């Protein structure tokens, strides 16, 4: 079975129980009803402020956390289903059961090990995501060991050296330890480790935010080259909108665990519809003094509300300039405003 999309995420939910009293727990809705799909070889950028749940989306999608709800498909195959997704027929209509309620999907959870070969992750902090007691060779070789991807030692070594060359590391680096490398080189090691199993999809969780500006460009270019060469798809999670815009085909904007807007990256940057996206874009300090002087910033008042104490209706309404009564009463659904520009806002 194969489909147009490599990764499909439907109504993904991830709640963490937080103790709020002696015995009382309150669910922290880190990810609440997120749906998106990624085509083979495509890059979807995921942006939002800290605490909006973008990292959790990446981890839940790879099932590093067990999702609270929703369904995840890889290449058309369901790899996780919490059993709460309404079934739809070919035309997209929700199927109804004999009792008139929507028919729900079947619970399903598969052994992830074979899928780990297809879906990998690159972590934010190259200083803490590499084992300090392992040599580079063993760090990159570990996924090969786990999946038994070599016949003999010579083949293992050859594969590792090829991977190192692919990410721009020298062969003599193989016997060194992670602490001997600079941040940019460490991130290269992390990327080589992710590529070791020849994945088709990589979740990149803030892979360049810990790097210096001059090194950042090296790593961003490498991600692009690898995508061209190997055809991998990325979920590129970052808070730097300029970098995300540069690397992504499409961008999704999250706020407090919910998807606010999703569109092609040019469309999103030039024609943001959601008031949150508009203010987020206007807040980006541009490396261009002339436009920085001229432009009108939309400075948001206040802070992000606590996810334990979410506002009713639209989560952004407490900071939104256009908020009306309707925004407090009901949460807006993510709707298509033409050309696949999805927006969750009551404002037309």
């Amino acid at each position, binding site marked *: 079975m194969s489909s147009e999309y490599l990764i499909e995420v439907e109504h993904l939910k991830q709640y963490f129980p937080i103790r709020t009293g002696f015995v009382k727990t309150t669910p922290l809705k880190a990810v609440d009803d997120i749906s998106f799909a990624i085509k083979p070889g495509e890059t979807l950028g995921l942006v939002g*402020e*800290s605490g909006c749940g973008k990292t959790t989306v990446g981890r839940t999608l790879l099932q590093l956390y067990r999702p609270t709800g929703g369904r995840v498909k890889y290449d058309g195959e369901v790899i996780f289903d919490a059993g709460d997704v309404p079934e739809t027929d070919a035309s997209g209509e929700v199927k109804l059961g004999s009792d008139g309620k929507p028919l729900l999907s079947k619970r399903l959870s598969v052994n992830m090990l074979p899928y780990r070969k297809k879906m990998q992750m690159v972590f934010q902090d190259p200083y803490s995501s590499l084992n300090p007691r392992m040599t580079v060779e063993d760090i990159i070789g570990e996924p090969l060991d786990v999946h038994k991807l070599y016949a003999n030692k010579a083949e293992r070594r050859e594969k590792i050296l090829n991977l190192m060359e692919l990410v721009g590391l020298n062969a003599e680096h193989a016997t060194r330890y992670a602490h001997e490398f*600079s941040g*940019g*080189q460490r991130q290269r090691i992390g990327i080589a480790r992710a590529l070791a199993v020849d994945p088709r999809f990589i979740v990149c969780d803030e892979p360049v935010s810990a790097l*210096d*500006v*001059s*090194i*950042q*460009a*090296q790593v*961003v*270019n490498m991600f*692009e080259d690898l995508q061209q060469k190997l055809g991998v798809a990325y979920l590129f999670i970052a*808070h730097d*909108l*300029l*970098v995300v*815009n*540069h690397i992504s085909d499409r961008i999704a904007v999250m706020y407090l665990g919910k998807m606010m807007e999703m569109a092609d*990256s*040019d469309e999103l*940057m030039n024609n943001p519809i959601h008031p949150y996206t508009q*203010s*987020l874009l*206007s*807040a*980006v*300090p*541009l*490396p*261009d*003094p*002339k436009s*920085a002087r001229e432009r009108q*910033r939309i*400075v*948001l008042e206040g*802070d*992000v509300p606590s996810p334990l104490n979410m506002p009713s209706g639209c989560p952004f309404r407490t900071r939104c300039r256009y908020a009306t009564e309707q925004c407090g009463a009901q949460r807006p659904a993510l709707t298509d405003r033409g050309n696949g520009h999805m927006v969750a806002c009551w404002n037309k």
Partner: protein
Amino acid sequence: MSEHLLSVKNLHTSFTTDNGQVHAVNGVSFDLDAGKVLGIVGESGSGKSVTAYSIMQILAENGSITGGSIEYKGEDITKWNRKQMSSFRGKCCSIIFQDPMTSLNPVFSIGSQLQEAILLHTDKTKAEARERSIELLKLVGVNEPAKRIKQYPFELSGGMRQRVMIAMALACEPDILIADEPTTALDVTIQAQILELMQDLQKKLGMAIIMVTHDLGVIATMCDEIIVMYGGRVCERGTADHIFYEPAHEYTKGLLRSIPNVDNAKERLVPIAGNPINLLNMPAGCAFCSRCDKAMKICLEAVPAERPVGKDHLASCWLNDLALQEKAETLTAEGIPAEKIQEQTGWKKDGNGEWVYDLASSGQGGEVTFEQ
């Protein structure tokens, strides 16, 4: 000649480590006038923060200022004793740190931390200090200040904590505010709030700001004048427009090429090759030479002098010295004496009438030729 508010001259700061002396700052000079915003930009290890800490003399124990002077209103503060320095800090110059999560004391309330600065530097009573701290919180846009002063740092969000830090820094109305990566730990929307606040306060109170950051976007938004640092030296200085539109140093050019912009979003980035330099192992010549694709032989051997490349725009790059040969020729044609020309451009004519570059003009002996 008018006196500058702060004048840093040929500052050298180094740290003693197990692996030897680390020369973090190697001859940094700049002037700061009242009401101006000076940006110091550079990547990690460029010495930008150490420059800021040297001004405040809050270096780590193994660090010390090994040369140069820092003049505040004409007085060299590197010669001041501890007592004089502690009255300088807070009253004349204060600093905001990068991480508002760790630079506030978790076991004292916001109010008592604010009042500490006020009680130390002024002869206000406790009640007056309390009044003043509420006033300050109001100034930096913290809501319900009377309630906030009883709260502890963990009860506030990152943006609020940074506002409290700014309030603390402003408690005694300093002439200079040093902001060391003030918004790096914050989200963009909160960053915009804090930058806006700093601009407002600067207009209202007329203080000078030294903005230390690696973020070119923040620099472009905030600063009048910019210093670009690399390997503990200043490689280029000028106004924001100079640095962003007419960069003269290869490092500045490289930095600007390596960041994505909105207009050319999909164009391929041009990274700077190689890795940041190791300060323990500094090259004899230009610190940037190992990563520069236009490096010449001279770049490896001698440190370039700072040469004007435009009005109020200076750069330290041998390529600029090379280009000055033409200027030397036009000056000769205008009949300017040879000594003057050599002073301005470094070029002189040898016995055969050929142009040679005299290293002596940049403080080093010998003559050199430029070759790849």
